[in-house]
């Protein structure tokens, strides 16, 4: 009994401390930078990257954000100085379809409400803190279809061929 009691108290204490550390964000304003792979030759997989600097009117010390994309929720890592939240994922080139990817951001309160709604299979009324849209053009071969080396070698070959033909004519 005492064992269960200790565990119970500990878990209560932990969840309470989490609740204290996780502060909500009020009136979030985010400036985001987005990146997605465009050149298929330079990367083995398509990478998507969203970097957001979030400002809240209540200036929370520990702001934990969650990103929701296609109904899946992921925790968003943040930089050591708390200034930037960076969310990224990778997909194989063929599965990374072109189009607009909408990423909804939630704080812990929003995350809890959303999870609750998901568990009870209800439609969530929870509004995201902010939304970022990433327009991805499917990664392709940027630039020339032929390698520049090939062009250089072909040009050199043509000039040399011209020189050889002229030389042979001279030596006839």
């Amino acid at each position: 009994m005492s064992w269960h009691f200790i565990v119970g108290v500990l878990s209560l204490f932990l969840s309470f401390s989490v609740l204290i550390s996780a502060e909500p964000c009020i009136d979030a304003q985010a400036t985001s930078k987005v990146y997605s792979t465009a050149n298929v030759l330079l990367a083995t997989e398509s990478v998507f990257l969203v970097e957001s600097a979030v400002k809240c009117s209540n200036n929370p010390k520990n702001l934990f954000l969650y990103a929701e994309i296609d109904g899946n929720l992921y925790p968003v890592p943040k930089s050591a100085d708390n200034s930037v939240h960076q969310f990224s994922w990778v997909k194989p080139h063929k599965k990374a379809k072109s189009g607009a990817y909408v990423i909804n951001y939630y704080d812990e309160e929003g995350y809890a409400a959303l999870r609750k709604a998901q568990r009870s299979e209800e439609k969530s009324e929870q509004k995201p803190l902010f939304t970022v849209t990433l327009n991805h053009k499917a990664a392709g071969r940027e630039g020339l279809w032929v390698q520049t080396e090939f062009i250089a070698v072909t040009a050199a070959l043509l000039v040399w061929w011209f020189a050889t033909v002229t030389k042979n004519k001279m030596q006839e």
Partner: protein
Amino acid sequence: MSKNKKLTKEEELLLQDFGRNVSTKSSLLFYCNAFFVSAVPLWLFWRVHEMDPQDSVILFSVMTLICTWFISYAYKNIKFQLKHKIALKIEHAVTREVNHQLDSKPETKKLTRQEKDERILWKKNNVADMEATTYSIFYNNTLFLFLMLIMSFYVARSFNPGVNYVMSTAAASGFVALLSTSSSATS
């Protein structure tokens, strides 16, 4: 010839003009051109293969000098081959032109046949020499650059830039020199 050891003026002129030796002026032109062409790969290996010029200054200098020697050797051989052929081809045109020029002026019209022939020979040599020199430079430059590009971009691409540089320039210049001798042997 063994009886008459002294060469005639015409024979001396022929030897001088059609021998394998090149004049100092021509030699200087060859070495300068060969040096510039040998230095062209430096740009490729500095900017494209990203070699540091300060770190590889000794390698660059040594290989450029070796290439310069090989390429100027090829210039001389190709020039020697071409000069004969060009001289034969332009003979009629030069003869006609020089005769026309000499006949048009009263002071040169009275020159003897031998003097006229000497002038024709001199003119023919000059023209053939210039054409063969410039053409030899052009031909060898194109061959060297083509071989060097193929070597550095395709054959030796998997090696590190330093090895790639040595292989490409040495192989290209060596092959240019080799080709110039082999075709002179057959022609």
